[in-house]
């Protein structure tokens, strides 16, 4: 390096330092708007990789400007988030203030370990934020023996995505019963031409939530009166149907598929139908991610022999951590993040949010994808409010039940599923009893 170069480098470094100092100078005089009641506070927020926080991220600077708080947002995948929270909370010294949580998945686990800060008092005090705007079923999903542990942010329900163009060409109407669903899958299934009739999740534990609507429509359930009922004749029929459907008319390798794989196949135009949660529509109609963005139809999940009760659940809620050192600031953030104003923006960004007023807002509904709001209103009154067994050890139970699903898909529904289901039921019973939730 000659002398001239060295001089230039020094100049460059000095320049950088000056510009950084300039940035620092800006921060000393925050814009004076709002009441700045959280000035100087830093709120640590843990979120999942999900479209809701994606929409939230863009709005956070507004919140920071208004309140003077600084928000530190961390994002993790679903399972990583649960692990991170569990490890931090177990240590007892977590400085997490607000976190996203899955009431059906970890609600009981976190309640049992007292990791949620009950929000009843705060909610009572915040009149115009309007707790009543959340439907009763979603409020129930986040309430544990009277204590409101989180605020529901997203709703989702089982729905049927289908290719409008293929249905039209084949002269088919969207199926309204499971029989018609199978017939349509059969008709559109043409693996030699790279087209598969239907896809749905087939990966062990992840398949469980997607089997649930099939299970309910065959008249089955997970748990009844503290005992597992996944081995009843109705449940076995559901297992058989699901396995046959995916084995005969599904893509190869379906037993390794979670929703990202299924979504990728559907978006690449290789599948005619997909049953999964309504929120996943966003990835199908985004022209940047989907080759069939303008050809996607939404239909109500088909009815089974025992009626139609697809799931409609609260997959995500937001909570204040019981170990937070600044619960008031945390609640301020949560209140803002679940306000109607923010939720409308999130809804228009592709989420299906949980406030009643948004779904009744004609202006908002007009801008949604055709069929979505209509499907939501049809499912609402008939829905089942859970999509997996409601218990503390739900992860382990899902693995046990998922094994039966995998077995059924691998054998096309022909294996001895009664035996496999009985084993799964015994395992779930054992877990229920261990956690004191069973009925011996």
């Amino acid at each position, binding site marked *: 390096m000659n002398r001239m170069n060295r001089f230039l480098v020094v100049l460059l470094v000095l320049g950088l330092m000056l510009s950084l100092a300039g940035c620092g100078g800006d921060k000393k005089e925050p814009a004076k708007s709002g009441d700045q009641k959280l000035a100087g506070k830093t709120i640590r927020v843990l979120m999942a990789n999900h479209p809701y926080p994606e929409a939230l991220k863009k709005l956070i600077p507004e919140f920071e400007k208004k309140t003077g708080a600084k928000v530190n947002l961390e994002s993790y995948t679903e*399972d990583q988030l649960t*692990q991170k929270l*569990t490890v931090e909370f*177990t240590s007892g010294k977590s400085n997490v203030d607000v976190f996203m949580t899955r009431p059906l998945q970890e609600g009981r*686990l976190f309640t*049992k*370990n007292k990791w949620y800060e009950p929000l009843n008092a705060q909610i009572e005090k915040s009149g115009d934020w309007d707790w009543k705007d959340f439907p009763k079923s979603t409020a129930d999903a986040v309430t544990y023996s009277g204590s409101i542990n989180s605020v529901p942010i997203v709703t989702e329900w089982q729905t049927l995505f289908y290719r409008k163009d293929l249905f039209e060409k084949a002269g088919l109407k969207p199926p309204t019963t499971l029989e018609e669903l199978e017939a349509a899958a059969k008709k559109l299934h043409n693996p030699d031409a*790279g087209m*598969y009739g239907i896809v749905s999740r*087939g*990966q*062990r534990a992840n398949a469980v939530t997607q089997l649930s609507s099939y299970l309910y429509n065959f008249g089955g359930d997970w748990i009844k009166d503290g005992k597992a009922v996944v081995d009843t004749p109705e449940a076995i029929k559901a297992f058989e149907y699901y396995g046959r459907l995916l084995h005969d008319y599904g*893509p*190869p*390798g*379906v*037993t*390794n598929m979670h929703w990202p794989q299924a979504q990728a*196949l559907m978006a*690449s135009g*290789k599948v005619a139908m997909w049953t999964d949660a309504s929120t996943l529509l966003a990835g199908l109609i985004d022209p940047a991610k989907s080759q069939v963005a303008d050809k996607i139809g939404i239909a109500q999940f088909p009815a089974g022999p025992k009626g139609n009760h697809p799931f409609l659940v609260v997959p995500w809620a937001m909570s204040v951590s019981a170990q937070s050192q600044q619960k008031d600031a945390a609640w301020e953030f949560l209140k803002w993040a679940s306000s109607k104003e923010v939720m409308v923006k999130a809804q228009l960004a592709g989420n299906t949010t949980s406030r009643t007023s948004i779904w009744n807002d004609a202006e908002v509904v007009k801008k949604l994808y055709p069929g979505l709001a209509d499907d939501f209103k049809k499912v609402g009154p008939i829905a089942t409010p859970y999509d997996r067994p409601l218990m*503390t*050890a739900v*992860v*382990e139970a899902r*693995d046990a039940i*998922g*094994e039966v699903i*995998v*077995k059924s898909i*691998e054998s096309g529904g022909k294996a001895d599923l009664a035996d496999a289901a009985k084993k799964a039921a015994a395992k779930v019973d054992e*877990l229920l009893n*261990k*956690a*004191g939730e069973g009925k011996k």
Partner: protein
Amino acid sequence: MNEFIERNLRWLFPLPAVIFIVAMMAFPVIFTIGVSLTDWAMTTGGEPQFIGLKNYQDLLSDSRFYNAVWLTVYFTVLAVGVETVLGVGMALILNREFAGKDLAKGLLLLPMVATPVAIGLAWTLFYEPSIGLANYALQMLGLPASKWLASPNSVIPALAIVDIWQWTPMIALIVMAGLASLPQDPFEAAMVDGATPFQVFRFVTLPLLMPTILVAVILRGIDAFKTFDIILTMTAGGPGFASETLNIYAYNLGFGYFRFGMASTALVALLAVVLGGSLIVLWMRKRFDY
């Protein structure tokens, strides 16, 4: 003071190292063994209780544990077996002089320095049954398509192929180092006696190389036994439990089910098996004088 240091010099010098080893290695192992004797689980709430060897009893009556042990052994033997044969062959080829030898040696290092998660994702795409390259290649050769990771019969071989792709070069490199240090006299003697190249390999090269190969196999075997990231990213133990090895099983128990006591028990079992295996190999080395 000075006198004290002077007198205890031989204790004082290694002290930092001893403290480090105790803190970083012995403590976690002892802590894990301790936890394995409790019923610590987040799903039951409350404080962990000491329950003696109950977890070990439960583990031994769990069919998933035996499944995991079998899969771990299957994966390790298959992967390391093929790697050894290919690795030794590769080393013998690279031991000759040819144009581009240095380039070839450099390329060998590539798979080893790639990050496991990236490898897992790339191979998952490669194996994807309907749009992946693997089946395309099979069909070009006129072979039937495979489900690769999605069938319980092919998932372990498919995972072993990834391990073989990544780690055969390591065996090759170790064996090459061994080849370079072999004495020349026995080879000359064999030539003089008129041995064929195969006979030279079978009766001279291989026996002389055996200690080196054994070291490579032990190192690789222990590593393959503990394979984690590749399996987690590619199958997470699926389909069903068809690729749930011991490490994945312990991970599921700990971070999936939050049963820390039971997960520690599974990890102690894993440690015991690895330790046992290593001891047997060491004993064999002495016994057969390699």
